[in-house]
């Protein structure tokens, strides 16, 4: 299966280990993965700030990089959602095709590849942060607001990891407060939300906080480090490829 790897800009620049883990994971489950070298950003920072009209250049660049792939996979629910909902192009047919073929990593593993076994071991207590764009936007997991049976694609995968103990949080799908540029324009609320989100994990004695969005994890990592906590964050791809 040919996959175009879409690595969001901040992962490329600050968390290359997450991108490497994603690449390894996809190859491990049998995909032929290419990373188009001229990719930059999905355009979400501008669009969520009200400047979607400035994202034309980013869109065309995205289209140039990914038009030819059967599947486009990304280790970020938020960026995937942005492409799925807001990618447009002068060649709208091509953009439409890309919008229908872009997948967040965990949904690709569960829905397309139907992964049922992983040779991974991670013997720690882990808290899962359900990032909002992935959960509510892409439908990666059932949300607590709806009256419907529960499911979670990230949990389904984490349950395949040997030794991993997933904790139950008090608020299982509360936003962490990152929110893109919200984290700086609304610093007070953003930080308070992050502190509260982290506190829920700490109350349940986690060793690691994981999630499908590095942006949320980066925010919580910043708060954990400032508090000199020993709890670490790891993107789900790093845990799904972990060995002893």
């Amino acid at each position, binding site marked *: 299966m040919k996959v175009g790897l879409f690595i969001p800009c901040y992962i490329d620049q600050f968390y290359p280990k997450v991108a490497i883990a994603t690449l390894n994971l996809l190859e491990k489950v049998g995909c032929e993965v290419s990373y188009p070298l001229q990719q*930059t950003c999905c*355009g979400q920072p501008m669009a969520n700030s*009200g400047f979607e009209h400035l994202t034309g250049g*980013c869109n065309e660049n995205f289209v140039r990089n990914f038009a030819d792939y059967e599947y486009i996979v990304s280790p970020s629910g938020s960026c995937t959602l942005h492409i799925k909902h807001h990618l447009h192009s002068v060649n709208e047919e091509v953009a439409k095709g890309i919008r229908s073929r872009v997948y967040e990593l965990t949904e690709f593993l569960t829905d397309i590849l139907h992964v049922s076994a992983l040779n991974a071991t991670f013997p720690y207590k882990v808290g899962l942060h359900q990032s909002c764009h992935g959960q509510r936007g892409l439908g990666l997991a059932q949300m607590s607001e709806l009256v419907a049976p529960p499911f979670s694609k990230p949990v389904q995968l984490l349950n395949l990891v040997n030794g991993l103990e997933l904790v139950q949080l008090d608020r299982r799908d*509360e936003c962490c407060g990152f929110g893109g540029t919200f984290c700086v*324009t609304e610093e*007070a609320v953003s930080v*308070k939300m992050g502190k*509260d989100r982290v506190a829920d994990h700490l109350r349940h004695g986690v060793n690691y906080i994981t999630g499908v969005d590095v942006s949320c994890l980066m925010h919580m990592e910043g708060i954990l480090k*400032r508090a000199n906590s020993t709890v670490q964050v790891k993107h789900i791809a790093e845990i799904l490829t972990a060995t002893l």
Partner: protein
Amino acid sequence: MNKQLTLDHADAAVEFNKNEAKVDWHDETLWFVRTKRDRAVAQIPEWEQLREAASQIKNHVLSNMHDLLIQFEQNAIRNGIKVHWAADGEEHNAIIHQIIQQAGATQLVKSKSMLTEECHLNKYLIDKGIDVIDSDLGERIVQMRGEPPSHIVLPAIHLTKADVGETFHQHLGTDKGATDPQYLTEAARQHLRETFLTRKVALTGVNFAIAETGGFVVCTNEGNADMGAHLADVHIAAMGFEKVIPRAEHLGVFLRLLARSATGQPITTFSSHFHRPRSGQEMHIVIVDNGRSRQLGRPDFRNSLKCIRCAACLNTCPVYRRSGGFSYHSAVAGPIGSILAPNLDMKQNADLPFASTLCGSCSNVCPVKIDIHEQLYKWRQVLMQEGYGPTTKTVAMKAMATVLESPRLYRMAGKVGRGVLRFAPITVENGLNPWYNQRDMPEPPAESFHDWYVNQKKA
């Protein structure tokens, strides 16, 4: 005047967050209401179908607004209700003032109405020499304090028992330092009883106006709407025109949704049906536009008019819970207020659609399925294109777009940025960086993924 009300959302939130213990209390209290709502809706297996039914009924209403309002007016007049139309808040206030004057009254007892908050009725009437008393307990408390409500269902949720005790001590003469809810409630009860018994004109809101019957329904938990309206010679009901529903049978959908979404109750304690004035009584209804027809004409935003004012989106909103109602500086706070307020005044309320992480919880908790977070996103686009953003932001966004649409510039900027963080962290790790104030920066790696990938391939 509360300082928060005059600031934009982010600055008001800074004020609110100065007392972290109170923020925690506010958050936990509202989260408690949200979880109570979750338990109450889980008791209804067909909850999602009910939401869909409500949404469809409201779609029908929005598409047939003119006909339904005319039908409602005709039936209301036939019932003996006097119907008034107000184009805006000013006209709404003037009509109500005139009715009070015609009744020869100088006093008004009000039941809860967010529309009158939106139109600033209290201030208008008080300036004209009318004595106005809000009879909903929460509203009465904030009224004594000279504050607007901070929540559309729980108007005094920003106050603690001690705050209420102090307010009652000042205004009702209760013992100083008293916090016992029973004692304080009894004092309020005696005070309001006197009000109900003596006021000749009563005003209520309208939760649902039924086109088919010309009657309307008012929902309260305290029975204060009934106490006011039943004892007064004149009953004035104020309604935004979107409150109309086609038929009485639709109440079965909305009344099941409203209280569960609002407070987690199966139904409000009082759902009072008013159809015609009793013998010797006058009944007026004031139907208000105040920007609603403009909103109805905006395809992206029209279905914000489906709102039944349950406040579920406020309770679930992680931002509202941590910034408080006053930070929205608008009659309707929270996510729904943030999509209604820009319609009233784009310039004044340009900050509100940005007071959200777009987490989407509001849309999914909404009993009438308003796509609130998607409208927040769309308002952001409209407001920035209309030029209501700060110039610095526009310049920054243009620069960002230029860098991100060019792979070469992007890689160069990335390299420089990581280099700065690695070798001269002081340039970003300072008090001018709103990320760094309360969070550590991520540790920059020597190599981007792009560079690693290229090097790997060479190897």
